[in-house]
């Protein structure tokens, strides 16, 4: 394994930024640290780099405990959110900096820098200064600079945060390709769940300093460990229900919950893709009216109001929507194909996925 965190905590004064976090990163893995801002993900990244020291717990890189090893000696490459390029140096000198510090021979430095600039598509920009580069170019220079001294781990803090939306998509695909090319263990921080899902081999989800879940994109989407993860990854309908006679009820909706006692409050969640819509008010059990539809590219989001006033979000492809002949104001009926009982933000969730009806595509990629 490449990196290991054992019960790592970090406090800034009274604020607990990271709370007793443990996880392991495999050699060559591309791992996303995901969470809302203030979740502690950047602090974790900085502790691995050595820019912050943990208040307690151990950090191991390739089996060696690095708590007492300085930033300089950890052999990591760090890409800062705003790139932190050396403003007074041109592209060549920026990339060569780490090699110069390591006292590489001049010729070797020249070759290594040329190699990296070619790899990152920056050839010809050697003499440019950071202020003469576009955002995407600056970022690639920052990555080249971090990679130059052949680090054992590459750490990226919000790598696409400062780039505009159009470029982001290209950069993501590009990062995945770069990673599979170089095969260096890579950790990146993001607050964008879509970005994390698309790019990572595995995702670590943080909230308020706690590690909520670690798993592949599919795992965290399909088997969220708790309500936080379920709501943070993708979209979810979340309802508070009360149990009566083995059934959790929210207005007219009923969800079987056989092992729960009467009067218990349950939080129920289901994905918009688990909602089946029929263009007839009698096809399924619950009638409703389409209040709004939103066009999301190839997907449609449909908001259905039930007679009690409850709003349920459903999703379908544009084609499905057209086939069913749906439109705003239409009377429809819905079926909830599957749902989850989410208990509380902090409590672990028992794997109770109750499929009412195993329709096709009960778990689509719903992001």
């Amino acid at each position, binding site marked *: 394994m490449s990196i290991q965190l054992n019960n790592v905590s970090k406090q800034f004064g009274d604020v607990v930024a990271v709370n007793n976090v443990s996880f392991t990163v495999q050699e060559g893995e591309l791992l996303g640290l995901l969470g809302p801002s203030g979740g502690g993900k950047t602090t974790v990244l900085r502790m691995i*780099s*050595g*820019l912050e020291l943990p208040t307690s717990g151990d950090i191991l890189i390739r089996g060696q405990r690095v708590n007492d090893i300085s*930033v*300089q*000696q950890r052999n*990591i*490459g*760090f890409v*800062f959110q*705003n790139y*932190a*390029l*050396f*403003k*007074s*140096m041109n592209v060549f000198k920026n990339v060569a*900096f*780490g090699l110069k*510090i*390591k006292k590489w021979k001049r010729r070797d430095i020249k070759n290594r820098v040329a190699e990296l600039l*070619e*790899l*990152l*598509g*920056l050839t010809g920009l050697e003499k440019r200064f950071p*202020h*003469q*580069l*576009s*955002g*995407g*170019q600056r970022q*690639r220079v920052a990555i080249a*600079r*971090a990679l130059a*001294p052949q680090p054992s781990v590459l750490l990226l803090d919000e790598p696409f945060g400062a*780039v*505009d939306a*159009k*470029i982001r998509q*290209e*950069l993501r*695909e*590009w990062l995945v*390709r*770069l990673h*599979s*090319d170089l095969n260096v263990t890579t950790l990146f921080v993001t607050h964008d769940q879509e970005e994390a899902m698309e790019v990572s081999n595995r995702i670590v989800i943080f909230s308020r300093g706690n590690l909520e879940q670690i798993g592949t994109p599919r795992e965290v989407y399909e088997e969220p460990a708790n309500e936080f993860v379920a709501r943070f990854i993708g979209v979810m309908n979340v309802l508070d229900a009360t149990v009566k006679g083995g059934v959790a009820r929210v207005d007219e909706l009923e969800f079987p919950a056989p092992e729960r006692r009467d009067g218990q409050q349950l939080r129920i969640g289901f994905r918009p893709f688990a909602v089946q819509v029929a263009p007839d008010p009698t096809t399924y059990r619950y009638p409703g009216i389409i209040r709004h539809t939103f066009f999301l590219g190839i997907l449609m989001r449909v908001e259905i109001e039930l007679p009690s006033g409850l709003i349920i979000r459903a999703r379908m492809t544009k084609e499905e929507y057209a086939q069913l002949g749906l439109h705003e104001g239409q009377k429809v009926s819905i079926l909830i194909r599957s749902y989850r009982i989410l208990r509380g933000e902090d409590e672990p969730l028992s794997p109770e996925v109750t499929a009412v009806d195993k329709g096709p595509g009960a778990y689509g990629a719903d992001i």
Partner: protein
Amino acid sequence: MMETDTKLLRRGGDTKSQRGTEESPFVKGVLITIALSFVVVFLLLPLMNVFWQSLSRGVRVYWESFVDPDTRSAIKLTLLIAGIAVPLNLVFGLAAAWATAKFNFKGKPILISLIDLPFAVSPVVAGLLFVVLFGRQGFFGEWLADRNINIIFAVPGMVLATIFITFPFVARELIPVMEATGTEQEQAALTLGASGWQTFWYVTLPSVRWGLLYGLILCNARAMGEFGAVSVVSGHITGQTDTMPLRVEKLYQSASAASMTAAFAVASLLALLALVTLVIKTFLEWRTQREFDLAQRAVPEAPVLAPSIQISSRSS
């Protein structure tokens, strides 16, 4: 700029010759006249007069003013004092700016206000502070006398007074520059294996170089031109503790026609220093502003297709 604006408005058929927020041409004219006449009467004329007076008896007399050994010694002493005070202030300014810009600690606002103290204190008072400390009757007076160390009415006292007077210049210039730069570049250098010293030398110093130079130029001008504080601690020993400003005063007060010219000659040297300082200062301001503008200007995004092609061609 404003004129063309007005012209454009006129051409556009607008009868009003000004924007709603602009003053009338009369007020504009009066304000410009007042400002200009102040500059001419209080700055330009006296300055020209210095050069005029110093050259009034010919270039030869002007040059001869500098042959006088006492004047030469004053010039040498001025250079010596500036040569000690400016480097020391460079070190102090860098340390103070680094400490205040990169770290948070208790009493930081107090330190920043204290740096400004020499600007607030009258130079004469500053000089007296050192007399009270190191003079014969001063706090350390006896101790120093026992060891035969002269500070007051000697060069060390003049150096101390000059350092006191000039120490805000470098720090004041650097603090905002360093605060604006932040610490990320330094952190990046650390992750690349650089030691603290290498980081300072290769990253911090180059990023503040123009601000630093600006501070040094101002510091130097003040160190060479300081009169009040230095006068109090100098003892006015001709040929020993006279700096250029003190020499000017002495020559002027001796009231012979020759020494009068010599006074203006030395003064012209100081005025020249001021002019050179001004030119460098303007250049540095332009330089820093330009760097700032360049840093602010966003370069349009280029598509990132190039690297993807590069990588795929490499892996195939």
